[in-house]
């Protein structure tokens, strides 16, 4: 009999047959634990408990299932009861598990075991009891590795979906907090949850998210990127239209702005939709520091973005085609540096960019102490040696290094990588066609970005299309007392804060000190 056929079968009334079939389906794995016992002494009613070692908590099984069942006597009349009635008897006899559910076929039974539940079979019953005893080793809550902040909460998501939803719930004590769960992955059966705040979120957005998730057909979902790639609005675009984060505060903030969060089990990265281009330049501590400081930091990040995208292309374009645009002294310095370099400036730039990318990749993949050493050796020794050997000019080292540092100033690592990717076509076009190449590839890129949507919303909003109200928290961050309304896309456009929140000293109160 095929495995699929076995799974479709209902349970048998014979306990031993059920246990054998389960073992057969799972291939008698070494981590499948089977505990046989008797629950009604008068008739010697056999029972068997099956669970996977490591997924179920054996202490909980011992204390909340086996001990009550073995110590509390049951009447022999139990044999005449239905499954539902037995479930009530088991509950009354002291089973302290959070939930008991009845399963009737092998498919559901196997799902329950693999999800970390214990499956209790009682002889002569064609149904089994799934007891919730999940318990596996998990990582403790730690500071996120990718979204670090100077000021603000230090807790980050972990690999457990339930812990992650709880971390967000702690920040949203609103009865309208909604959570909808499902499983995706034919084989992995990964738990997925979407959360949102009813009354703030657009209903069609929730429907759209659910529809896209329900349309997914894949064998396994191991990380949230699997979901991201399968629900993306523009899967071929280098721009990210779904944002992933390790920070619960970021997710909570997004939900307060009418967005939907997508949690995936076994990963600390939670997705949030819809996403706009500008959100990749925002960090959590923009909201935990003074608004002038936050706006200044954002300005620096936008400068970093422009440098990261265009500096090497601009340099190559100027040196290759438009030397007259460079101030004379600088042109002479560049020419002196390039005097012994045998390569065209485009090849020189590509060579240095490749070397930089190699060092970055090696630095990330190697163990931390060695990775740092590689970066230092790469940047100092190899760079200096390349200049001394006359392979590259000193100014090219400065250009590529500045570009690299600028790309690291973009808070979202994956967004910075995508920017690094898209600067190569601009660089090559500038190297071949100068200003024409630079302008056409840049405009193509801009048109592409403007045409993107994230779950129905324009990706470049609120600037393209222009919405003056939503600009209050994009390029700069206005003070909280000046942001009275939520973004325009929030359902009902509810007030975010009261009117006239700008603080001022109480003028009526008399001062203690007389002038």
């Amino acid at each position, binding site marked *: 009999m095929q495995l699929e056929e076995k799974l479709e079968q209902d349970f048998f009334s014979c306990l031993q047959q059920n246990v054998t079939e389960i073992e057969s389906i799972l291939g008698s794995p070494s981590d499948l634990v089977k505990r046989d016992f008797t629950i009604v002494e008068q008739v010697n009613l056999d029972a068997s408990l099956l669970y996977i070692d490591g997924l179920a908590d054996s202490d909980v099984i011992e204390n909340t299932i086996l001990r009550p069942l073995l110590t509390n006597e049951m009447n022999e009349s139990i044999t005449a009861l239905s499954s539902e009635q037995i479930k009530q008897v088991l509950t009354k006899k002291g089973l302290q598990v959070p939930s008991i559910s009845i399963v009737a076929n092998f498919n559901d039974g196997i799902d329950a075991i693999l999800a970390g539940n214990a499956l209790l079979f009682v002889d002569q019953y064609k149904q089994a009891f799934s007891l919730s005893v999940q318990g596996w080793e998990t990582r403790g809550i730690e500071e996120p590795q990718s979204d670090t902040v100077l000021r603000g909460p230090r807790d980050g998501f972990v690999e457990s979906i339930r812990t992650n939803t709880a971390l967000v719930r702690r920040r949203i004590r609103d009865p309208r907090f909604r959570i909808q769960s499902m499983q995706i992955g034919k084989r992995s059966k990964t738990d997925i949850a979407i959360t949102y705040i009813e009354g703030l979120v657009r209903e069609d957005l929730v429907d759209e998210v659910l529809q896209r998730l329900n349309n997914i057909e894949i064998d396994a979902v191991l990380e949230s990127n699997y979901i991201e790639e399968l629900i993306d609005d523009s899967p071929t675009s280098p721009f990210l239209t779904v944002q992933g984060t390790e920070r619960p505060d970021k997710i909570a903030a997004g939900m307060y702005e009418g967005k939907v969060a997508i949690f995936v089990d076994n990963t600390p990265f939670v997705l949030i939709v819809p996403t706009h281009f500008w959100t990749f330049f925002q960090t959590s501590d923009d909201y935990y520091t003074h608004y002038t400081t936050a706006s200044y930091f954002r300005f620096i990040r936008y400068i970093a973005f422009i440098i990261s995208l265009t500096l090497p292309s601009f340099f190559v374009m*100027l040196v290759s*085609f*438009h030397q*007259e*645009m460079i*101030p004379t002294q600088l042109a002479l310095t560049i020419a002196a540096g390039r005097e012994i370099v045998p390569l065209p400036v485009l090849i020189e730039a590509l060579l240095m960019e490749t070397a930089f990318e190699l060092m970055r990749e090696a630095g990330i993949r190697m163990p931390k102490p060695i990775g740092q050493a590689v970066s230092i050796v790469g940047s100092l020794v190899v760079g200096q040696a390349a200049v001394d050997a006359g392979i590259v000019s000193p100014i090219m080292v400065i250009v590529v290094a500045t570009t690299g540092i600028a790309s690291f100033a973009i808070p979202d690592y994956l967004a910075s990588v995508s920017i690094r990717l898209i600067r190569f076509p601009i660089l090559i076009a500038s190297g071949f*066609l*100068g*200003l*024409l*190449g*630079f*302008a*056409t590839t*840049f*405009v*193509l890129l*801009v*048109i*592409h970005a*403007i*045409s993107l949507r994230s779950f129905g919303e*324009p990706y*470049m909003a609120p*600037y*393209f*299309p*222009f919405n003056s109200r939503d600009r209050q928290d994009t390029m700069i961050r206005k003070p909280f007392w000046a942001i009275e309304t939520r973004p325009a896309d929030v359902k009902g456009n509810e007030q975010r804060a009261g009117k006239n929140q700008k603080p001022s000293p109480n003028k009526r109160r008399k001062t203690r000190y007389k002038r």
Partner: protein
Amino acid sequence: MSTQIRTQISNSILLAIVINIVYAKAIGVTQGAIARQVGADMWIVTILSILFALLMMWVVVIIIKRTPEKNILEQSKVLFGAWGEKIFSALFFLFFLGAYGGVMITIVYHLMDYFLPDVPTAIFIIATTGVGLYGLSKGIEVIGRFAVLGLFSISILNILILFGSLDNFHVHHFFPVMQNNLWSNLQATSHHNSDWAMAILMVAILLPMVKQKEKWNKYTQKSVLIGGGLILMWPLLQVGTLSPEVTGQYIISCMQMARSAEIGLFVHRYELIMIVFFSISALVQVMSCLICASISAKHVVGAKNINKLYIPTALLLGGFGYWIVDDHMRAMHYLEDYWPILSMSIIIGITVLVLLFGTIFKRKLVQRKGK
């Protein structure tokens, strides 16, 4: 067509597109031609053209408002029948084909004469038409959003040129004011009127796609006034800074002014930055011409799917643009002698005919409204 769900754009987006479609050619190529004809009165000619544009834009809005769900070509079908529609559409296509020649002259000579003299002309045409085609494939909504960026670029460009030119500004270059008689100045308006004709005929095609028809008149007039203001700054600076005599010596007079602009001691020769901003506006011109030509072609051939016409239209327009641009003398003759006459004949002829027939056969239009 009228029963289909159309793409909708806002009045502000239309405003941005109108300003962009006029700006790029009007600030340089057109001003050079006007300077050669009327000298220091070029700024007066520009103002007269803006008045002409205000009038024509008002007429076009009146025409379209009679059947708000139909563009001027669809309205001409109601008034003149299927063949009337085809003839009008062919004239529109001819207009945008001709306009594309002017647009290509503007873009290619800006880049080729001042930055890339060794690059073959065909590369410029292929690159710009290719970008236009990509924008076209994304639709009018995306072109509109891009035009908003173009408007921002135009503002930056105007600020940069203003700061870079004021030091050398001399009022005496303007005197004597009205050195030509009014008739000569009116005759010279045909150069700038042909720029505005592009915007007016584009509005005649795109207006039914614009939301809130009660605001059409306000926004179209606003677009002419804002666009006109942004353009007017250039002849004023060209007369005051370069002098009309020098302005008239150049095909791309704005580029010469950009080249002489400098801010303080350290910021000079920043025309490269200005041209990057300029190129955004110029590419909106390219996209707008392509989309209007494609819509006209759709009415000519009676095609259901406009997407299939994009590439043939782009090839035709690109080919014509190449033929015009490849020879400087041909380009200048075309731009100064033929194009103003052709464009004025089409815009005045079509609008007056549709306006008159629409007034005479008002009942026919009312009966077919919404059908």
